[in-house]
């Protein structure tokens, strides 16, 4: 069988050298068990060592290799060349993020948003406990789905509100906030509400739902955000109808 090839058209941006990005085409050997990440690694090792991109586990658990493949946000380690062959594959950095270099996006803003929802167990008891926290399987199942996020940011690339309103906290961070709000060990709902229930929080979501569609871990961030909207409504009415201090 003759050697088969497939074209990768890759977004290149070199700060200081390029004013605007360009697309660079590479002819990559085609193997039906290769993924886009294999093709990028082949390019970097054999053809163009200057190509810059993030990756790590190559098996869909680290969340490092998110990028746009033919306009769709995917993990490059999960995008098989055979699903595109023989057509060329366009590879770009994740939408809605600034580009540092080539396929690498600036994720400072995303990390700030994650931090803003206080993603740790918040307790009422100041001095802590002597023993471990006990949790039943039923209590675990309430929040487990929302704990599966690998911070790959595909949901941010898929969400039009993230693009249109840069201050929007976003799907992954909001799902993470719900993960802790639903955790039986946590007492931090009220503390998180100032972010989750704010204009930049759950209330900015218009339930497009693409975040859930692209999530590789079935976190269902869209569902999480809607639940937070309902919780915010309850919180609002409680604060208006019962303005005296609670709990």
């Amino acid at each position: 069988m003759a050697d088969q090839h497939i074209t990768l058209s890759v977004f290149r941006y070199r700060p200081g050298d390029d004013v605007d990005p360009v697309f660079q085409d590479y002819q990559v050997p085609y193997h039906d068990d290769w993924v886009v990440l294999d093709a990028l690694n082949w390019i970097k090792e054999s053809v163009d060592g200057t190509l810059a991109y993030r990756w790590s586990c190559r098996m869909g658990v680290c969340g490092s290799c998110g990028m746009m493949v033919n306009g769709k946000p995917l993990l490059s380690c999960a995008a098989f060349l055979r699903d595109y062959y023989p057509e060329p594959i366009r590879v770009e950095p994740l939408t809605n993020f600034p580009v540092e270099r080539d396929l690498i996006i600036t994720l400072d803003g995303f990390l700030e948003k994650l931090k803003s929802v206080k993603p740790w167990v918040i307790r009422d008891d100041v001095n802590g406990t002597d023993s471990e926290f006990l949790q039943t399987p039923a209590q675990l199942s309430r929040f487990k789905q929302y704990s599966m996020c690998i911070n790959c940011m595909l949901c941010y690339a898929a969400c039009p509100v993230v693009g249109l309103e840069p201050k929007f906290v976003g799907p992954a961070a909001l799902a993470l906030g719900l993960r802790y709000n639903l955790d039986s060990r946590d007492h931090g709902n009220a503390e998180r509400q100032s972010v989750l229930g704010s204009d930049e929080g759950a209330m900015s979501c218009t339930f497009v739902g693409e975040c859930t569609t692209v999530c590789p871990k079935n976190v269902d961030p869209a569902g999480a955000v809607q639940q937070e909207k309902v919780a915010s409504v309850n919180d609002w009415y409680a604060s208006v109808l019962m303005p005296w201090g609670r709990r």
Partner: protein
Amino acid sequence: MRKPYWREISSTWYLSSWPYRWFMVREMTSVFIGAYLVLLVMWLFRLAAGAQSFEQMLVAMRSPLSVVFHAIVLAAALYHSITWFNLTPKVMPVRIGEERLPDPLVAIGMGYLPWVVLSALVVWGVLR
């Protein structure tokens, strides 16, 4: 050196994929439903104005323009109803113990079933 490159969001972003297009269709149903509600209010005023006024309006509503308008509005309203009921289980998940009730079950129980029952009730209430 760091010199991040900002890519612009297209002003026609909602045309760039089928999911986005269908999202915009769903949002636009509110324009059609809103228009129908305005006409419904005018319909109520005609009812209040008496039998002659109301009956004249009913006859006028046999026009092709009225029929086409209502067909379009009905399509929009149906799309709103179906998308709304299908999304309801995500807004209000129903948990029993460790398990979460399957979404289709919740959509039927909290959406489609009441829809059929209430629609039948309204038809009976008006036409009996």
